[in-house]
């Protein structure tokens, strides 16, 4: 059902920035810090999306996903590995036996500039290869021109092509310019069938930021109040340190709360943050600041 | 046995770094006795061109630094210069100044920086207006920096004159490319070291040493420079600058004064000269 885009919430950027500043000045220490770090770790979609990806690269990444650090006991694994459709099969095989999901980008990621037919086929291929989750991109050009029905229909069509796979809809907030546009795009994506709304492809700057994430969480909140249905959220790109990841969790905690604080409802699209989180966990255990040399890079 | 000291190399100051001139050329500065003080970089038009690109890039972010922060940065420049007072006094003496005059010049330069630091968050209140127009509109006029400014610094009172033209330009949010005094260029480059240590972002102030006759036409004709300041009395130069500036309607500012110690040489009007006035309207009826 197409959403009512009139009377949609509008946002004042200065005010949003002030709220974000309050989230960022929270001081997370001791056991609540460890709790937060482990939670963040469990929410990571470990990602490789490069033109130069190969079978070997993906296999090594999957091994890292299953074995993040040999010395830390009782840590969760990441939520998923995120790759291009051509490597879904490889990832599926490499992750066999673990609970880690395989997410695939699709619909001519990252630009989305091609025919609907190609996008459908791209999606179907990934699903056939075994993808548990599909991360699609919206048509930003159409959105910015005001063709909201087009954007809505496209998402609904891809949702159908996903079959059992979960659909994450990437808004590419860095191209949407304003917070009000982010809200509008979120609304369209949610009503068109998104299971998750996601900030960015990570291929342009800015990728995820706290203000756009905040607006997307607000959209999810209002949808829940209207329908009782929970939609997930994934910021991607730019979350490079454990500190930043914790700030996002503070925001999630204080905006959506307990129901969303798990990896069925919140994911972090990142790669280098994994090692930073591991370093912080070891530091918490030993009291010593760590060196990257002791944490495997894959 | 006396310790052999290490002589300083004087380079240019562009983009927060100290490069040599891309032309590799130099000119000699001698003391009164005719002995070498230093080989200065003889900056080329390409150095100037590069500096303009860098100054333009730095201008938008410098402009958006808050007035309070700009004031604190200028105060910091004063702090650092105060700490290096002796170095500057010595350099001025080397260039031929008397000890008494050198000391006075450096002290006034420091105080002038503090003076302009104090204007950073006030000149806007002083020069802006809310205008009582007859229609139902809220109408206000405020100042905005012109942008990138070329400055030909005073030939004499080389430190004080330099500070007196740089401070009001940058406190107003402009970025500058300055051609130092040709015959007394030492303190200009040493001052660049002070700027570099004072939280002034790279590219906000760029300092070149070289030949006035060679560089003036480029500084006056560059199409991406918004204003030019010339300190001096040479009518030929003034005419040349005025004519070349007309190519992009550059704002021209001429200071013919030669006694920069005078109190009249510091005022908010020095800031205002490098500013544009913007007037904005907004309806007030619902």
């Amino acid at each position, binding site marked *: 059902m197409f959403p009512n885009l009139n009377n949609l919430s509008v946002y004042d950027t200065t005010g949003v920035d002030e709220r974000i500043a309050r989230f960022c000045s929270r001081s997370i220490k001791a*056991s609540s810090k460890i709790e937060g770090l482990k939670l963040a770790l469990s929410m990571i979609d470990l990602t490789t999306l490069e033109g130069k990806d190969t079978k070997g690269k993906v296999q090594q990444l999957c091994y890292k996903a299953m074995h993040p650090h040999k010395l830390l006991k009782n840590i969760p694994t990441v939520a998923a590995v995120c790759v291009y459709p051509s490597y879904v099969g490889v990832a599926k095989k490499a992750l066999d036996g673990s609970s880690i999901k395989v997410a695939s980008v699709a619909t001519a990621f990252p630009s989305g500039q091609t025919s609907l037919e190609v996008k459908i086929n791209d999606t179907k291929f990934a699903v056939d290869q075994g993808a548990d989750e599909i991360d699609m991109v919206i048509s930003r050009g159409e959105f910015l021109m005001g063709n909201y029905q087009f954007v809505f229909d496209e998402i609904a069509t891809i949702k159908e092509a996903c079959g059992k796979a979960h659909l994450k809809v990437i808004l590419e907030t860095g191209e949407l310019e304003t917070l009000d546009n982010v809200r509008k795009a979120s609304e369209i994506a949610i009503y068109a069938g998104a299971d998750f709304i996601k900030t960015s492809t990570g291929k342009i700057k800015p990728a995820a930021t706290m203000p756009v994430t905040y607006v997307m969480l607000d959209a999810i909140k209002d949808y829940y109040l209207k329908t009782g249905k929970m939609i997930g959220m994934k910021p991607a790109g730019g979350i490079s340190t454990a500190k930043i990841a914790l700030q996002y969790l503070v925001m999630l905690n204080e905006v959506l709360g307990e129901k969303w604080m798990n990896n069925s409802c919140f994911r972090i699209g990142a790669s280098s943050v994994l090692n930073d989180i591991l370093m912080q966990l070891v530091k918490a255990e030993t009291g010593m600041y760590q060196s990257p040399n002791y944490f495997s890079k894959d | 046995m006396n310790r052999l000291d290490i002589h300083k190399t004087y380079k240019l100051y562009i983009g927060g770094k100290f490069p040599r001139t891309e032309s590799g050329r130099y000119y000699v500065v001698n003391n009164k006795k005719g002995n070498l003080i230093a080989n200065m970089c003889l900056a080329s038009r390409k150095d100037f061109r590069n500096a303009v690109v860098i100054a333009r890039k730095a201008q938008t972010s410098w402009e958006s630094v808050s007035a309070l922060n700009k004031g604190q940065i200028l105060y910091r420049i004063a702090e650092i210069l105060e700490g290096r007072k002796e170095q500057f006094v010595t350099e001025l003496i080397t260039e031929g100044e008397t000890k008494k005059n050198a000391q006075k010049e450096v002290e006034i330069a420091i105080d002038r920086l503090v003076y302009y630091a104090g204007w950073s968050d006030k000149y806007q209140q002083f020069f802006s207006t809310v205008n009582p127009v007859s229609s139902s509109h809220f109408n206000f006029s405020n100042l905005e920096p012109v942008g990138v400014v070329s400055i030909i610094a005073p030939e004499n009172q080389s430190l004080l004159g330099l500070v007196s033209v740089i401070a009001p330009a940058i406190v107003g949010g402009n970025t500058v490319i300055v051609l130092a005094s040709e015959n007394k260029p030492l303190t200009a480059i040493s001052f660049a070291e002070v700027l570099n240590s004072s939280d002034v972002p790279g590219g906000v102030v760029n300092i070149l040493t070289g030949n006035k006759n060679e560089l003036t036409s480029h500084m006056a004709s560059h199409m991406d420079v918004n204003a030019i300041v010339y300190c001096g009395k040479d009518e030929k130069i003034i005419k040349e600058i005025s004519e070349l500036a007309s190519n992009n309607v550059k704002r021209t500012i001429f200071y013919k004064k030669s006694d920069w110690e005078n109190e009249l040489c510091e005022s908010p009007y020095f800031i205002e000269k490098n500013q544009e006035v913007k007037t904005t309207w907004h*309806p007030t009826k619902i």
Partner: protein
Amino acid sequence: MQKKENNTVFKASWTYDEAPESIDHIQLNEIYNLYIDGEFVKPAKGVYFDTFNPANNEKIASIAEASDEDVDLAVKAARKAFTSWSKLPGKVRGKYIYRIARLIQERSREFAVIESLDGGKPIRESRDIDIPLVANHFFYYAGWADKLEYAFPNRTAKPLGVVGQIIPWNFPLLMAAWKLAPALATGNTVVLKPAETTSLTALKLAEIIHESGLPKGVVNIVTGAGKTGATIVNHPDVNKIAFTGSTGVGKYIQKATAATNKRLTLELGGKGANIIFEDAAIDQAVEGIINAIFFNQGHVCCAGSRLFIQESVADLVIQKLKNRMETLIVGNPLDKNTDIGAINSKKQLQKIEKYIEIGINEGGDIYQSKCKLPKNGNWCAPTLFLNVSQSHRIVQEEIFGPVLAVQTFRTIEEVIEKANNTPYGLSAGVWTEKGSKIFHLTQKLKAGVIWGNTFNKFDAASPFGGYKESGFGREGGLHGLKPYVKFD
């Protein structure tokens, strides 16, 4: 769909551990004396009073009580210092004030900790807002000291002489900065009395004044309560009184200085209207409401303590407000995660509780957040009173605590009338995304400070002060110089 009122549907699950600010680096004495004529001196009558940490009601230090004799000494010292201080070139005065600003920055964390310890405000507020603003004020006015000929067209500004300044307990060091900076920049000398529950940061400031080399007698700090303040007000050799505090005391001071030659500025109470229109950015407006009345425990003269919501969005705003209130952490002021600290004193807490009782008896619907309050100390949960009207006492009278009175309105003319319908006139807030509406409201609201799509914003360059019974005179900006000068 049936909207069940459930303020815990978005309950936060992750609780943050204690994040205590370290306090082992601060220097605090057990006894503080008066700062007169450049040195700390014992009070003439040898009387001291205690200052307490409102978070646990434990004593922090003993503070000297200035008697009439001490006040007289202070005024004499200020008078003596005035002769040379007023004749110093503005540049030199400015340089002293710059030094003070820099020294405050160097010791900023210590000041923030002591402010929170003594007054009860969260360390995050004192660290991120109060202390930076303090330095900001000294920086700003230092710059005016040698530029006064530009401040008043066609007039030569001269200092008044000895000024007596009496400041409150809600922003102790910041109020000291608001008073001292313009007075010194314009060439006056000062006798300052901090509030008796929050004297410590003013006394630490005396240490900085000492370190800056400021000539002795230029600033004198005499601690004490109402009696000390009255002595200053009535002292015949004081040329001007600047007072920030309650309207009641302000009126007393205005009467006491009537028919004297004393100049006077007053910054008094308020009952600010915070107005939310249906076309506001609602989420930010809710944050603005929180900011307006709950931060600093509502101990803010310009607090937005009367909320007006356009009826069409009232339910939505109130629901969001209640949800947001549940995420506010009331606790130890020195915990970095605390949003709302301790009420400044037992006396103030009793006053707030009295008003809450009045509100309930008057028939207002009370809502308080479900936060856990600590055991010892003075605490009050964020409180709303819904379905109240202009006739309720809790809507008319200043409570000075985290208590918000909520009304609805229908038209613009109605809300303007109601917002102005008060003897106060300090502040107001307007929330709408329509520009012309903002200008229309700001032109019609009778208040000295009007915030459009924001609230409780302060800057050294921005003049602050009230209309009507909220006082007269402005602090901050170019306008803040005027109260401290006279013209030939």
